[in-house]
């Protein structure tokens, strides 16, 4: 494989100097009253496997630049990946032409002056250096085990390494680089009667353990075979961290002040206003975003170049903050509170074993699937359990059960909290791509609502 090393250079992305040079070149072509450019560049490597062998693999590298032109309160944006002078000029001129034609936006806040930023933390050399043969080796750690076990391993490994820069005609410049990776596998019995999932996500590839992911999925595939039906209804559930993150991140997405103030959000207060200061979930729950959290880092600035910082959304069950964009913040007489691209929920001291042992009758859930909004008034979602759903009786896992559809809200779930374990970073995207950086504990919850049974394995 030595030829690969020369052919496939490590991950490509624009360095700070390259991004700054590109930004300057674009800004120098601009004639609008104000101009902002955003530059995203990076490489995504992917390797898929199915039925114990690699099915597709590829690398793609791309750089895009978005030019936003502003005349008074009129603006427009053009995005292109054609970065020679002709391509850039085409983008700048098109953006300016569209901006002049656009009606005025009364909510236009203009461009920010230069800002101070902390250095973003989400970069890992181990991830950026991973090449296709390294990915194939990681995959083989799973497929060799599944083949030896007479099971079918299917899964996906993705790595991303890239940079993001924002610059404007007022002299603002922000730059961050970051990596991401996720390795997930679904292992099935050849007769289709059992299915088990395991996966991990981190910005540092060396923190993933492919062999362990394979082992956990194999074990779940075996244990889940020949599942039996139980009656849908309200159950005590022990949720593995991935299942918790599947739902808690939905709460994160709803933390928007404007929607709340406009009366169309769970966070709207009956009679008017929003729920900042009100207790909405169990007092043991605290949810925070911190761009500098080494385990779940995020960009230290937004797409407009606004610095992000540690934000407590929910503290001891009470809503502390909702996100405010610059316009809504000004209108509300508050500082802007940007959404941060990561979440951390605090945990407790219970182990998975203890949570199971203390449950007379309940359900252990590995993960949820096809989660879609049902009612925004309560953040109610529906979806199904998948790839490892087990009945707990008298403190022990006794049998595999068929999958169940839930209709439930993370708000109700965190109100019905019984116990929490130690938080871990998980892979919580349905697609197997790295997704939101999120760290959550396993939890035990009472009265979780399952509404129907599924025959799907």
């Amino acid at each position, binding site marked *: 494989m030595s030829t690969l090393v020369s*052919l496939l250079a490590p991950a490509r992305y624009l360095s700070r100097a390259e991004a700054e040079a590109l930004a300057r070149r674009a800004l120098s072509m601009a004639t609008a009253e104000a101009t902002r450019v955003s530059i995203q560049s990076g490489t995504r490597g992917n390797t898929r496997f199915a039925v114990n062998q690699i099915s597709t693999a590829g690398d793609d590298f791309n750089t895009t630049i978005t030019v936003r032109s502003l005349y008074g309160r009129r603006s427009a944006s053009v995005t292109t990946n054609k970065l020679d002078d002709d391509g850039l000029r085409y983008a700048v001129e098109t953006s300016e032409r569209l901006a002049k034609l656009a*009606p005025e936006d009364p909510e236009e806040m203009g461009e920010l002056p230069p800002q101070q930023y902390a250095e973003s933390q989400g970069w890992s050399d181990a991830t950026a250096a991973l090449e296709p043969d390294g990915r194939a080796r990681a995959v083989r750690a799973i497929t060799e085990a599944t083949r030896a076990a007479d099971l079918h391993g299917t899964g996906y490994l993705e790595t991303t390494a890239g940079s993001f820069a924002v610059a404007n005609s007022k002299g603002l410049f922000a730059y961050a680089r970051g990596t991401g990776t996720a390795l997930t596998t679904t292992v099935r019995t050849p007769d289709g009667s059992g299915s088990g999932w395991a996966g991990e996500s981190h910005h540092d590839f060396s923190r993933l353990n492919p062999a362990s992911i394979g082992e956990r999925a194999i074990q779940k595939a075996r244990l889940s075979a020949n599942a039996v039906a139980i009656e849908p209804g309200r159950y005590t559930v022990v949720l593995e961290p991935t299942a918790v993150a599947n739902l808690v991140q939905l709460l994160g997405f709803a933390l928007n002040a404007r929607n709340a103030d406009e009366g169309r959000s769970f966070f709207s207060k009956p009679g008017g206003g929003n729920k900042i200061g009100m207790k909405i979930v169990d007092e043991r729950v605290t949810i925070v975003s911190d761009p500098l959290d080494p385990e779940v880092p995020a960009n230290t600035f937004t797409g407009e170049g606004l610095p992000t910082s540690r934000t407590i959304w929910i503290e001891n069950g009470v809503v502390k903050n909702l996100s405010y964009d610059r316009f809504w913040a000004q209108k509300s007489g508050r500082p802007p509170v940007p959404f941060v691209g990561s979440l951390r929920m605090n945990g407790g001291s219970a182990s998975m074993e203890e949570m199971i042992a203390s449950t007379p009758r309940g359900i252990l859930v590995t993960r949820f699937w096809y989660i879609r909004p049902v009612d925004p008034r309560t953040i109610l979602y529906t979806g199904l359990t998948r790839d490892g759903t087990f009945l707990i009786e008298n403190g022990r896992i006794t049998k595999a059960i068929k999958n169940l559809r839930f209709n439930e809200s993370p708000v109700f779930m965190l109100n019905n909290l019984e116990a929490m374990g130690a938080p871990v970073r998980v892979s919580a995207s349905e697609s197997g791509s790295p997704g939101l950086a999120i760290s959550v504990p396993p939890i035990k919850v009472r009265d979780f609502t399952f509404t129907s049974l599924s*025959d799907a394995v």
Partner: protein
Amino acid sequence: MTDRRDFLKHGSLAAAALWTGACSSGAPPTIPAPGPAQTPSATPPADIQIPTRELMMRALDAARDAGAGYADVRIGRYRNNFIVTREQQIINVVDTDSIGCGVRALVDGTWGFGATRTLTADGVAGAAREAVAIAKASRIARDRSVELAPTEVHRDVTWKSTYEIDPWTVPIEQKVDLLLRANAEALKVPTVKYVFSIMYFVKEDRSFASTEGSTIDQTVIRSWVPMQITAVAPDFSDFQNRSSVVQPAGRGYEYVLAQDLVGNAAKWAEEAAQKIKAKPVEVGKYDLILHPSHLWLTIHESIGHPTELDRALGYEANYAGTSFIAPPEKMLGKLKYGPEFMNVRGDRSQPGACATIGYDDEGVKPEDFLIIKNGVFNDYQTTREQANWLKWWYDQQGIRPRSHGCSNGDSWASVQFQRMPNVSLLPGERDIGWDEIIADTDRGIAIVGDGSFSIDQQRYNAQFGGQVFHEIRGGKIVGMLKDVAYQMRTPDFWNAMDMIGGQRSYELGASFFDGKGQPPQSNAVSHGCPPARFRQINVINTGRKA
């Protein structure tokens, strides 16, 4: 699965934020537009020119030289245009433009893929060599060799989708004016406080060449007007949305004009307002009458996806899932999907449908095929690699294995794989429609528009909401319901269908965002159907109190 969750769902500025910055690297790509751009309202800059044909040949040569037994190359230019508004203001005007080249190489029965935005001879040759190198690197984990079903060679062919007005030629002022006038009409309804409306246009110039000799140029245009109208109770005790008012289509700006946004906005807004006062549904079993604007999504999830052959054979198990229609030898010609009058067709030929195309991303000219024939499962969706897997079935039918032309990549940067064609429920023989089916129903719920949707990974258990729920008593609409969702098990549901409309009631519904694959790709697809009735379906009430 369809992924419109990323769109409009989180309300407020999320939708706008989606368009403003920095899309991920998986986004869009490329190719040269013929001639100068035509935007009448101001002098456009000179358009981008790329020597596509020469570059494609260079890439194929490089792949061959590096050891590929087969290779294909796609050079594409993928453009989007968005106008985003709320109430009486414009949030964003965005153009995106992505150009690049993707090369797929087959080496010793293993695939590799490389892509680049550097459209020079060296750039595309590099991507081709990378594709071959990745194929070789992946060879260590190969079990079964890829074999492609034969296809005709199409030399120097071109194809263009059905459109009369290229949205890129329509002045922005016109687009903005139309949206803001529609918004204003909606806001005249007293409790209606918020309106998002967006114009979303797609233009793809796609070129393809393979080592077998095909060279194909195609242009695709799609248009959509997402709109969300929100009514809020004055005491903040409730809010209700009406969305899914205009279906996406594989057509141009003429389609937008034909929707009469300004004329219809008040009606849609009134429906949002009525939902505030609507009666919460009582749980139980009801006869459901599903309008095409709703039923398309049920077809998509419960027929479109489970009949993808790669899913049935486990290739998508880790994300999209597998299928209850497996193994093929126990299902083809045997599974009773629904009543005898149920025929479901796969096609990439319906004018104005989103998955309609002249040639797929393997250079195959698609033919229409029956997925369900007289109520019985008849065929899967396939690519060239997959068609051979069903040789035994096609032998029984006296047919040569042939790809159904379902290969698609969502950009130059994405490897092509099996994606859904248009999958449509064919109309019945009786010349009836929506009104006649309602008149024939004693106690039921008629559902208009697609809403919440979720289905398991084998496509058995699903739950669907909707937009407008009419209560039916004694053959008449007697009022509006809210908090309605129905739950179903796919084969039971389709076998409960007892009435469908005729040709005049047939309509297309669609999604721009059907998600599948890892890395995830988006596919635009339409589903045609008449309204249909389903007997005694389980309905739940989704309105819980916080």
